[in-house]
């Protein structure tokens, strides 16, 4: 069934149940992926998936929902019936409506959709990448975690008032995670992920080079003394921290009492005036961009922090109504609508005179810890309390030398971290989760050796 037929089927079945108001979100995908092990194909995967989520409003204007992978005529009827039953338990204290922007025109950019290259080519490309990565250094013995995939998907949103949005796109991903071993030393691992619109768009050689360089750079390692250090966050690690604490900008989290912010936090100073943070799901470098959210609201660029102060929160339809503003294009589609950021962009503002610009990760000769990648976010972040304690991969720079840190955690508080930013480097880097420059922070606790 295509999206137009689904809309017709839902409309007919809703009429039968006397449901006047409904909306739905659907996604259809075809995914292909390969993994290799020392030159041999290990697992080759293909999947065809379809998911339909239907919301209905009953006569008391309470919302019920059901999700199904059965997009047949009988499946749709069953889903509507279940949603209708669930609506008896709809939230009376916080109503949900259609997004007022669900029919607004969307400025659709050129759709970068590629044709499948096929499993055999994916396999050939990944085999070649594995061989090159192992050959890049004598200590790299294997690439235990690897994969090349391509996905083709279509997303739809429609409602009973005639809103209808649909888009389709393609995306490919390559990850190479190498393992290096040297006699009498612990094995060391690192890797790289690259995204593209199709497998042919991925710069495989740069992924190999980056995975190799990162892995080799950790061969010469040492433990670090437990202490407070000047920290330089890589663009990737800083974005990880901002995403982990994005509940500070999330209206849903504020209403739920699990955010460090409150309704009156707009204008609150969080950081140096030099810091600007945007959420920009439509950024041209965002391979995963989507033109509308789960409620059909168009995606847009939104300033979250302007010159160190909170400028906006991200919203769904219902949170925007409560905050007396407009939805921002960050909603999911659920019984309780979730809100989440798309793609974070960190910039240096024009008000940057208080920064210590001598702190540059490529030239600074003093002692500092460079955090390349933060791990185990799900275990080490307490978003509602603002604290974190996270293992990381990185280096200690000392006396002009750089040495990989064997095993350590960095701990702190997000508000302290933001207030103690001492430099924002000029050049930004594109990562898989956003764009950021290197960010320097004074005095965070590192636990290594006792």
């Amino acid at each position, binding site marked *: 069934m295509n999206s137009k037929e689904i809309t017709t089927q839902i409309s007919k079945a809703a009429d039968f149940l006397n449901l006047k108001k409904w909306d739905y979100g659907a996604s259809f995908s075809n995914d292909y992926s390969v993994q290799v092990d020392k030159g041999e194909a290990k697992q080759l995967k293909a999947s065809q998936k379809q998911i339909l989520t239907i919301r209905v409003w009953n006569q008391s204007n309470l919302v019920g929902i059901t999700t199904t*992978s059965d997009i047949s005529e009988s499946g749709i009827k069953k889903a509507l019936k279940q949603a209708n039953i669930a609506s008896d338990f709809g*939230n009376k204290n*916080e109503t949900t409506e259609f997004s007022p922007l669900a029919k607004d025109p969307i400025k659709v950019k050129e759709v970068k959709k590629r044709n499948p290259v096929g499993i055999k080519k994916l396999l050939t490309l990944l085999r070649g990448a594995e061989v090159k990565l192992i050959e890049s250094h004598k200590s790299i013995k294997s690439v235990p975690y690897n994969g090349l995939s391509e996905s083709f998907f279509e997303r739809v949103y429609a409602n009973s008032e005639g809103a209808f949005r649909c888009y389709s796109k393609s995306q490919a991903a390559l990850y190479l995670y190498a393992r290096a071993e040297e006699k009498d030393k612990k094995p060391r691992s690192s890797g790289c992920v690259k995204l593209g619109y199709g497998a042919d768009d991925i710069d495989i050689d740069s992924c190999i080079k980056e995975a190799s360089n990162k892995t080799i750079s950790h061969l010469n390692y040492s433990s670090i003394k437990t202490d407070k250090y000047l920290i330089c966050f890589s663009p990737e690690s800083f974005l990880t921290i901002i995403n982990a604490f994005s509940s500070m900008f999330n209206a849903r989290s504020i209403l739920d009492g699990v955010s460090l912010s409150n309704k009156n936090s707009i204008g609150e100073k969080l950081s140096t005036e030099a810091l600007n943070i945007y959420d920009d799901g439509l950024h041209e470098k965002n391979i995963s961009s989507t033109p509308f959210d789960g409620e059909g609201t168009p995606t847009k660029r939104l300033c979250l922090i302007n010159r160190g102060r909170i400028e906006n929160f991200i919203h769904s339809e219902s949170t925007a109504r409560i905050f007396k503003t407009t939805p921002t294009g960050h909603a999911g589609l*659920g019984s309780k609508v979730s809100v989440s950021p798309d793609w974070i962009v960190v910039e240096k503002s024009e008000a940057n005179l208080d920064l210590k610009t001598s702190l540059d990760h490529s030239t600074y000769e003093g002692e500092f810890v460079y955090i390349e990648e933060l791990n185990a976010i799900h275990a080490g972040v307490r978003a509602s309390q*603002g604290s974190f304690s996270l293992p990381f991969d990185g280096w200690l720079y000392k006396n002009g030398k750089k040495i990989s840190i064997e095993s350590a955690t960095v701990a702190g508080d997000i508000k302290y971290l933001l207030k103690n930013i001492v430099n924002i480097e000029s050049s930004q880097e594109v990562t898989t989760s956003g764009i950021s420059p290197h960010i320097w922070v004074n005095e965070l606790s590192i636990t290594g050796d006792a």
Partner: protein
Amino acid sequence: MLSSQIKSNEIVFGSCNRDLLEEIIFYGIGLGADFLEIFIENTDNSSVLAEEDFITSVSPSFGRGAGIRIFKGKKDGFVSTNDLTKHGLMRSVSQAIEMLDIIDNKREVFKGLNKHRDYSLSKKKWINEVPSIHEISEKLLVSTKSLKKNNKIITRKGSYSRNLQEVIIASSDGTYVSDIRLHQTVGLNVIASDAQYRSSGSRRFGSSGMPNEFRLWDHEKAANDVFESSMNMLYADYVDAGQMPVVLANKFGGVIFHEACGHLLETTQIERGTTPFENKLNEKIAHESVTAIDEGISEGSFGSLSVDDEGMEPEKSVLIKDGILKKFISDRAGELRTGHKRTGSGRRQNYSFAAASRMRNTYIAKGEHSKEDLISSINEGLYCKSMGGGSVGATGQFNFAVEEGYLIKNGKLTSPVKGATLIGEAKEVMPKISMCGNDLELAPGFCGSISGSVNVTVGQPHIKVDSITVGGR
């Protein structure tokens, strides 16, 4: 044409599908597959969320799909689809054959499916025995009300989810199995706040195959436990980082063994060459006080199964006996690629994942000491009463968040501390588990790995680790 209109040529749950399944397997084997497995599921799930004194979310879902896996030599092709018609399943087999580039003429023989092993017969009534949404909502609201014990509690949540999964598993070695699985979980969460201080508390409970379990759940006891935890931690200081002895509490304290050691005993890790224990069978890898078990047979436990996702009944596997490594956790691919016999541990989140060797109910066996023996043996250290999540890296380093911790001084529990993280490597920490308590208890959890998120149980008695790195401020 709609799939629902092709009744005679599609998988129908509750009916005999032998002819269609055999036809598909014959087709794949005829095209040159060494082995072909079909995993088909039909799900009926629902979840309910209570916040403060209101139900804020009720989310039912249902679905169906099939995963088809073909082996040729040691490589495998896996195709998943929502299309359960003969045409859809045949197309998936063709796709898997094509992916594997099977061109040789060597043919395996498929002799048809064995006698149907139907584990679902006594379970078909479960769907009518589980609590209704109305009943669930009422009990959740009573539970969140029980959390409202003072004005420092600023958020209260109760959540319930129920997953009912009907499966059919058929493969070219004759396996033909049906089963119904029921998992229920319920959790309570609070956030407490006073001026600049904040803390949180949470507990989750879960069962498998026990439709009445939610009704029997002691919500008052759970609410008291969560409340006390959040109050104890509200004004806690951050822990000082360092190397120190720790006592890990029973129940969810077992997550340390699950993450630090259990994952490294899965054959998927041997396949990747990422476990330090690969060549250590029958060698000492842990302190002699440690015996560790992985099994899928404890009645009602969250990780228990009648049959795994590859059609094998789960066994009780003694992984470590008195510190000596005895066994790995293995699935079909693990047996094929590493030689370790299957243990009934082939598991997957749903039809869209190929099964992999995964833990079930995994725990350290009880010892002979009391909790007080362990604590009184420490001069200065940390008692980890409640553990948060954790993870293990590609080279075996692990980390765990401590949700509720207390300093130990002169053999006694003293002040609460927050922000602690336990850091280490399995092969260094396992020999340092020097004392095991006599109070083994299990706790439910979800484990995310190569074949998705699966229900598991972790567990242990109180244990003492002689020295471990504690991350803090």
